[in-house]
């Protein structure tokens, strides 16, 4: 539940890249081809998307702990 809430706070671009990596489990080369972006851009985008997700999850957990 926390993860779903946090995911919903991310940009569509970050949600998309996380889906391709963790749900579709596509190699980064395939993702680069699919999105028509460089492979390094794929790696960087995944890194920052994961970072944002972690941040949002911490916020959700913090709010729930207050309630």
């Amino acid at each position, binding site marked *: 539940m926390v993860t779903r809430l946090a995911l919903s706070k991310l940009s569509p671009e970050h949600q998309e890249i996380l889906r391709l990596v*963790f749900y579709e489990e596509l190699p980064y080369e395939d993702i680069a081809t699919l999105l028509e972006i460089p492979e390094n851009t794929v790696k960087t985008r995944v*890194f920052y998307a994961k970072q944002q*997700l972690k941040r949002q999850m911490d916020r959700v957990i913090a709010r729930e702990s207050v309630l």
Partner: protein
Amino acid sequence: MSSQHQAATDHPVARLLPWYLSGTLKESDRRAVDQHLATCADCRRELDELTALRAPLKDAFTAEPMPSRSIKASVMAQIQAARAAGPRSTGDDSPRRVGEAVEQWFRNLFGPRWVPTLAAALLIGQLALLLWTAGQQSPVRSDTVTTRGIPGAPVRVVVVFQESASEARMRAVIQTLQGRLVDGPTTDGRYTIEVGPSAVGVVEAQLQALRQQTDVIRRAERLAP
């Protein structure tokens, strides 16, 4: 600077950790990550965080079964590209394709526009020939009976005149029959008249006409051969 950010900036190999976790890295990349993890605690912590996120992320995306927008867009683009390229031969010689080829060959026979026109022209020509052939035959007139074949033997008729019939009327009857008196009068008033070779129907028609003259003719019959 957080350890995560430091791991990403100082250790480029750290950016391969998501794929290292899913097992989709190339062999060379996997070996590089293995070697780095052996000596880098920050990257090992990063890998632990990714491992903890893996199952919840899968569950979150499973709850939303819609395909990835980019995957859907890519598939649609490939479909449209295939349609634009047109049908391609796959080299499959299955019986179904052979049957389709034969069917197409027959279709090609009737494909040219001139084929139906030619067929119609042939039918019309045959009909015209049939009508012309039928018209070349002599029409049969219903008011005359023509004789065919070898002329037959003279026909004889027997006529019994009325007692009041004049000689002139009797000669007129014989002339009507275009015959000649060959016998008579007998004791019972019968005259035998021989007419030329004629069809039975002609003689009967003449006799029927004579029988109408009741003031002259009492009886008129064809004499059996």
